């Protein structure tokens, strides 16, 4: 992946201090890399919308429009050996970690050679080798799981860190509370990112918590908490990098609240009738993470418009090519549905009414002369 190659271009390590934000140590390649992942996220999702409207995406479609900086900036603060667990709006984080556009497209289109062979939806998949573990739909559940992943890093004295995302809604779950508390007590090398995007499905944060801000919850767990502008990719990178460094130094869990905004509905079907008029348009106009970062890049970071356009063009090509590849794949074989629930047995058998053979009663007919009682109670 591009990320690996840009790592080589990183300047010699200098310890960061409070006065030097970690992002100031990023190379020019890396700065442009951040833009590339955000642009890829958006372009890929736009392609998915087109495929969804063509009914080629067989299930729901979940957008991260307006949250690309949050997903990309956090994941970019991790090393290759670290593991994260994404949420439905962290496509960008998965791409940074090495998930490919072809995989994403095949997943959404339920192809037989998709990462989950058609068993799971959308971006619910993972690869521990590449450092991301697939989420499940019950929210908050990945916090205890990542506590266990990072507990293992600690037990084995491995120089690895974990990162887990939750939304504003998931902070209300028991799993979030139990998981972050357990990880805090065990001083697991874990970063918990709370993405405050304003809504959990249709529920605004005021109906989710009486706390003034989610970062305040860190106090109750006895861990550091930091809040940052989730739509400023460099600020996201900085706050996450500081938390990752703390975790790597053995200082345990940090809760990071990223302030962002969900510009699309929970999924594509959601008409967002619950959103006050003008709110979405205001965020789009004033606080789009990609627009903001392009302004930085072409402003004080001194990139040219053609640098940006070159990235856009290469991303378009990548997504076009990936779409061609993904569309060529077929659906999974139906019988594959019965494989892989357990390691042993490796597969279960089709039920008799699917075998197309004789009925169960015929198969199990009692043989003539089977020893049993006769009507007078004697064995014959």
């Amino acid at each position, binding site marked *: 992946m591009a990320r690996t190659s840009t790592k080589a271009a990183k300047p010699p390590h200098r310890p960061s201090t409070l006065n030097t934000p970690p992002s100031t140590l990023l190379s020019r390649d890396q700065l442009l890399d951040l833009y590339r992942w955000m642009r890829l996220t958006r372009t890929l999702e736009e392609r998915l919308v087109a495929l969804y409207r063509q009914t080629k995406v067989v299930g729901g479609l979940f957008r991260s429009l307006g949250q690309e900086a949050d997903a990309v900036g956090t994941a970019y603060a991790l090393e290759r050996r670290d593991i994260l667990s994404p949420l439905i709006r962290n496509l960008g984080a998965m791409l940074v970690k090495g998930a490919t556009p072809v995989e994403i497209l095949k997943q959404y289109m339920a192809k037989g050679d998709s990462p989950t062979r058609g068993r799971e939806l959308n971006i619910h998949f993972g690869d521990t080798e590449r450092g991301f573990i697939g989420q499940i739909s019950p929210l908050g*559940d990945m916090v205890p799981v990542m506590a266990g992943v990072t507990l293992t890093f600690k037990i084995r004295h491995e120089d690895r860190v974990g990162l887990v995302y939750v939304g504003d809604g998931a902070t209300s779950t028991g799993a979030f509370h139990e998981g972050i508390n*357990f990880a805090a007590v065990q001083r697991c090398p874990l970063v918990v990112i709370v993405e405050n995007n304003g809504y959990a499905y249709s529920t605004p944060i005021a109906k989710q918590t009486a706390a003034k801000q989610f970062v305040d919850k860190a106090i109750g767990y006895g861990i550091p908490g930091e809040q940052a502008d989730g739509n400023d990719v460099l600020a996201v990178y900085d706050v996450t990098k500081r938390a990752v460094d703390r975790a790597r130094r053995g200082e345990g869990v940090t809760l990071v609240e990223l302030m962002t905004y969900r510009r699309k509905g929970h999924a594509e079907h959601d008409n967002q009738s619950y959103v006050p008029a003008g709110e979405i348009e205001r965020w789009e106009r004033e606080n789009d993470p990609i627009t903001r970062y392009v302004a930085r890049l072409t402003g004080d970071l001194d990139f040219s418009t053609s640098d940006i356009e070159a990235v856009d063009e290469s991303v378009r090509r990548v997504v076009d090519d990936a779409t061609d590849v993904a569309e060529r794949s077929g659906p999974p074989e139906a019988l594959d549905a019965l494989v892989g629930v357990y*390691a042993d047995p490796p597969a279960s058998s089709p039920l008799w009414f699917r075998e197309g053979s004789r009925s169960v009663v015929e198969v199990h*007919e009692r043989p003539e002369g089977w020893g049993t009682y006769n009507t007078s109670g004697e064995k014959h």
Partner: protein
Amino acid sequence: MAEITYLEAIREALFEEMERDVNVMCLGEDIGAYGGAFKVTDGLLDKFGETRVIDSPISEIAIVGAAAGAAHMGMRPVVEMQFIDFMANAYDMLTNYVATARYRAFLPCPMVVRGPSGGYVRGGPFHSQNPEAGFIHTPGLKVVYPSTAEDAKGLMKAAIRDDDCVLFFEHKYLYRRIKAEMPTGDHVVPIGKARIAREGRDLSIITYAATVWKALDAADQLEKEDGLSVEIVDLRSLAPLDDDAIQATVRKTNRVLIVHEDTRTGGIAGEITARINESSFAWLDAPVLRVTAHDVPLPYAPSLEDYVLPQTADIVRAARTLAAY
């Protein structure tokens, strides 16, 4: 070799497996310094240290979830539920996360969730439950429930070595009442294989856990007083069920009584009955009958608990009805 109790057999399995494999670790409430509410994990902390024997907060969701995460990374965690009743608190994590991990995400989840289960101990509604049926229903989980000390040890070793999640039900009534000499060597009892607890010709009792012993008492009485030869099948594993053993006993005696301590509606006896109906209907000389707990939360007072739970006399009565059919 000296006899050891059912509880000590479980402890011995934990010691042996933790010695054998550094990836085996224990997680639970009060399991370390205190040695567990029933002392099953007594001595583990001293021997293996607090990175492998972890005293956790009161957080069943967290310890089951953390065990899953550790299992993905190559550990083999053994999680204690202080009472198996509290496994309900981790129901989502077990059924939605753990059970589906291999299938949906190719994530290995080799872990054991174990704990004291069952009644006859005046434990009341939250220290006496038999919630196995709720988990047998979930593809992706394995469920075992031993009745003997030998099986308690051998199944625990099999559960720890299994590459999927095994729910290990320990009957607390049997903890210190049942003793046996352990087989020598590396004693592993395969998951999914039933055991003939008593050979017989006239009727079969299919059961598991504490009611195996009640069925054995009933069989003695039926032999003495009625001249009936009763076969007893101890299932040992509830998921997967040993269909071959069930079919064999049905086809041998043609009369089947299923006994379990769990409540009646939705209990595993219904599932076994349905399987017998599908596979061996023509071999039956009588309807399959059930002796189970009544469908109420388990009450505390001895007169109430004894009435709700299946007793030896209930089994004798049901067996006589079946034999006379």
